[in-house]
């Protein structure tokens, strides 16, 4: 089987609107969580989120494209452009034919729908613009990136709530590994901060009134975030042949379904996906030296995830550094796996393990080795990144430091 490496990284997030700013923030433990500015929160029980700041979409897109793109597509397309430029990949006709675009999104163009439906129901308009459908479809990012670069290989979007991006990256990895594609642009993006969607999250009663404190005894729920991250994945030999900079190797992917409950996660389901990722990567538990946790900071997730980690790694879990970077970039839903893969892969590349911010005291129900508040130096050879979605759909990626 072929090996798959990461040669380009692009990020738009509350921690910075490019890969370098993102890494500077995340490695110094700065949180991007703050008061919501995009919508009026006076009628909401929570007031904070991790919003993208200082991002002017019109600097990246002309008027015609501005009409066509929802903010979730702004984030996704801009991140993809950065990843492609970063990789230095040059597409000729043969490579375009064998490159695909695989993106994750939970909500699609929810801001667009929210605004147009508001026009219908509140403003009593009788029509919405014809761009409503193409702007809000969840596959918009995959389609726009494929059109912009002329990429005609396998291209699609996965929508599995909070696991969307991990499922997308996992599929891209497998398609290259099995020889269907030579390269892929893969990742996820999300723009969840619109009134209708915030109201829906308020009703779930899982959003923190203050901030996101994964695995902490005083945690009070998740914090929503927006943004996107994209990667260029390439078949290893091709990447080496063109002298590409290689950030790391996608080593394995595992997925599972809890077959249990829509909102209560199950230890066995999560553990099954972690084990599947290790097996797929031909790694053993001893190899894993960092876990980027799903770590939503809800009452339900964190103890479940800690128990899943213990069930796979046993007492070795005491020595494996764990962090949920959602403590800094928030829960970006369909983009989460991608932004967290960026944190994991850049962490391995720079030998710095990103911290778990806003941490005060370990919840005794969450017996994991949390990287509390400050990044740790550490050269590691393998790591995993977990995503466990509502609906009980789990997706775990395993990464290795690159060595040919």
């Amino acid at each position: 089987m072929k090996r798959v490496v990461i040669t380009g990284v692009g990020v738009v997030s509350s921690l910075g609107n490019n890969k370098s700013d993102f890494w500077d923030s995340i490695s110094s433990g700065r949180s991007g969580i703050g008061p919501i500015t995009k919508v009026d929160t006076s009628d909401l029980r929570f007031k904070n989120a991790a919003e993208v700041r200082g991002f002017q979409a019109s600097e990246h897109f002309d008027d015609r494209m501005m009409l066509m793109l929802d903010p979730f597509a702004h984030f996704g397309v801009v991140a993809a452009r950065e990843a492609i430029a970063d990789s230095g990949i040059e597409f000729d006709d043969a490579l375009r034919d064998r490159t695909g675009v695989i993106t994750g999104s939970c909500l699609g163009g929810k801001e667009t729908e929210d605004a147009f439906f508001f026009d219908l129901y509140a403003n009593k308009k009788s029509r919405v613009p014809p761009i409503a459908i193409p702007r809000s479809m969840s596959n918009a990012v995959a389609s726009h990136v494929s059109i912009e670069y002329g990429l005609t290989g396998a291209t699609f979007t996965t929508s599995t709530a909070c696991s969307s991006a991990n499922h997308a990256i996992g599929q891209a990895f497998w398609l290259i590994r099995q020889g269907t594609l030579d390269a892929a642009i893969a990742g996820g993006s999300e723009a969840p901060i619109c009134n209708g969607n915030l109201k829906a999250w308020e009703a779930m009663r899982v959003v923190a009134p203050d901030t996101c404190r994964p695995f902490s005894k005083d945690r009070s729920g998740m914090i929503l975030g927006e943004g996107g991250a994209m990667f260029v994945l390439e078949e290893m030999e091709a990447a080496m042949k063109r002298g590409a900079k290689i950030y790391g190797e996608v080593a394995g992917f595992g997925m599972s379904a809890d077959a249990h409950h829509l909102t209560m996660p199950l230890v066995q389901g999560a553990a099954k996906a972690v084990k599947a990722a290790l097996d797929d990567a031909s790694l053993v538990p001893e190899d894993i030296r960092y876990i980027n946790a799903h770590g939503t900071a809800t009452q339900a997730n964190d103890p479940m995830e800690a128990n899943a980690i213990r069930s796979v790694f046993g007492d070795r879990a005491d020595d494996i550094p764990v962090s949920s970077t959602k403590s800094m970039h928030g829960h970006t839903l369909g983009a989460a796996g991608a932004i967290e893969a960026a944190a994991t892969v850049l962490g391995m590349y720079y030998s710095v393990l990103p911290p778990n911010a806003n941490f005060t005291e370990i919840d005794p129900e969450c017996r994991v080795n949390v990287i509390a508040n400050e990044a740790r130096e550490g050269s590691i050879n393998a790591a995993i990144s977990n995503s466990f979605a509502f609906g009980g759909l789990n997706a775990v990626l395993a990464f290795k430091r690159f060595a040919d």
Partner: protein
Amino acid sequence: MEGNSISEKVIRVFAEFKKVPVEDIKPNTTFEELGFDSLDGLNLIFELEEEFDLVIPDDKVQSMRSVSQVIEGIESLLAAKNEA
């Protein structure tokens, strides 16, 4: 039973939600006995907010684990609302 006391209304919301006769809902009945999981609980709280035109704060929800606890909670929230 068409009574309009708070407790009668709460019991009616429970009965309609569970699709059972109101006689099956007793004040000491717990969410567990009704077979509620966390999502059922959230949906029931939503129905109560609609019935009483109330916002039930998250911390209040945590303390509502039986019919009588819901009645007490709603009564105190309504009293606070009427004072405001």
